[in-house]
């Protein structure tokens, strides 16, 4: 059994839930678990993580690490790998994780497996083709860097008999410079308050169809329109309509997904809805896994007919 290094991530001064999930994941893989906490003034959090899944926690505590910086974090992670002798490094697949983890793998000439959601019979399981297929990935060689999908496994809840160790990190070679964090702008459209959301995806095809097909259904139910990311990327609707990990997280009474495949980044934004109806012409679309009711059909037939029937039902 080898040594697993968990790279914990702090958010607003506390270790994120996703880091406790890494602790659970490390136990699933099996091995000697050690961790790294990076930041400035983070000794307290490191102490507490050591007792709640982190094990031996290396603490890279430096003013230059107060904010995320790819070079500084990279130096800290590599120092912790050296200190721990880890052969497997676990990092959450967050904006920080996907920015730094591949650099570590390349620097170590190690195997890299990203966004995994499970470990089964010696292989990592991850989703490919935007959620449509799964892949079992085996690691060859003696070192691996693995990023783990947040929310995939329940967080570690037991206690561990850990302690902290100060890790000296030289961040003087950092080239990338953190400037500031800009918080998300207040939204003109607050989808989080809507009871009904009729969302359209790339399958809607063009912006006119949103006005002709999606909007009338939303109006018939007194609801709001929503969208998947490609719709916003293409400029069909403004960002405030976007549902998902980089948009809004919504929990309406009814969410209707029209022409949306159901990639994980969309699902995290709407799977908490009270009731989900999916309309998609692909019977294998992953959206049907989170929906309660599904219609495998052309949305351009079903949606206008539904709008008309609702008008009739209301009399």
């Amino acid at each position, binding site marked *: 059994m080898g040594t697993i290094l968990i790279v914990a991530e702090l958010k607003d001064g506390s270790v994120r839930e996703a880091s406790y999930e890494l602790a659970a994941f490390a136990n699933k893989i099996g091995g000697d678990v050690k961790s790294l906490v990076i930041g400035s003034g983070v000794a307290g959090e490191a102490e507490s993580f050591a007792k709640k899944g982190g094990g031996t926690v290396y603490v890279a505590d430096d003013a230059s690490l107060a904010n995320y910086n790819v070079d500084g974090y990279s130096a800290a992670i590599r120092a912790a790998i050296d200190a721990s002798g880890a052969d497997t490094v676990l990092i959450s697949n967050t904006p920080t994780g996907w920015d730094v983890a591949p650099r570590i793998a390349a620097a170590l000439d190690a195997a890299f497996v990203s966004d995994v959601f499970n470990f089964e019979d010696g292989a990592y399981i991850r989703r490919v083709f935007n959620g449509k*297929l799964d892949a079992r990935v085996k690691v060859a060689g003696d070192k691996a860097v693995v990023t783990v999908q947040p929310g995939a496994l329940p967080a570690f809840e037991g206690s561990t008999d850990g302690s902290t160790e100060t890790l000296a990190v030289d961040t003087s070679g950092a*080239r990338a410079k953190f400037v500031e964090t800009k918080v998300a702008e207040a939204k003109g459209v607050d989808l989080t308050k809507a009871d009904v959301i009729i969302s359209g995806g790339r399958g809607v095809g063009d912006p006119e169809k949103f006005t002709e097909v999606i909007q009338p259904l939303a109006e018939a139910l007194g609801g709001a329109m929503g969208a998947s990311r490609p719709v916003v990327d293409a400029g069909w609707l403004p960002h405030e309509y976007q549902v998902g990990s980089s948009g809004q997280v919504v929990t309406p009474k009814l969410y209707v997904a029209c022409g949306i495949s159901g990639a994980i980044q969309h699902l995290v934004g709407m799977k908490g809805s009270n009731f989900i109806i999916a309309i998609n012409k692909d019977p294998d679309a992953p959206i049907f896994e989170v929906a309660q009711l599904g219609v495998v059909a052309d949305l351009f037939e079903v949606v206008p007919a539904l709008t008309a029937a609702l008008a009739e039902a209301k009399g």
Partner: protein
Amino acid sequence: MKILVCMKQVPHQDARLDIDGDGTWIKEDGIKFEINSYDTFALEEALRIKDAGEAEVVVVSIGPDRVTQALRTALGMGADRAVHVNDDAVAGSDALAIAKLLAAVAKEESPDLVLMGLMSDDGNATAVAPMVAELMGIPSATGVMKAEAEGDGYRCERELEGGALEVVDLPTPCLIAVQSGLNQVRYASLKGIMAAKKKPIDTKGAGDLGLADQVGTAAAKAQIEKIYQPAKGEGAEIIEGSTDEVVSQLVGKIKELGLL
């Protein structure tokens, strides 16, 4: 200034995904391919920098003969020349081997800026871009929604969760991996497509880049053992029938939810 854009050709987003004979990838014959969506935004960003001043835009892609199509499209959109790493030995490579090939091409080109997409629509690995930067020894930023020349480098806005942004300065040479939606991607004009026919595509093999023993299935440190349809849970109750029947059941459900 020189900009290198690394792009991947991937199965079209609406292509049928049938699993191949040995169960490790999809059947590629008979399906349509396209430039990875994230990479189209990277290419567009490069072309905008070119349009705004003096820049040479070089595109590089790794893959079999079909990749020529993607390179021709990029040249048609305005890239100046292309490098095609076309070598059967590369099949089955993992992300790290691909990054080594791209970094080797980049070392030959020595660009001021490398632009790539955050991830690919097929493998979804978000792996290659930071690896290329590490192997080149240059700084990088991923998930970039805005990049502007500033001082001796680029000021990048990285997308965080929920729409927050992290602003970071990178001195050049540097690598920027863009997030989808940072610009509106142009189409190749007819004139552009005609002009592209005369633009050079330089073809290389792994051996030319000194990497013959570091690519392919045998060298892969992360290997796909199997791909398969995700296990289906309980899933949705699927309503069958004519449009009228489907609609009447939907109306019934909406009433039951008290939303009518």
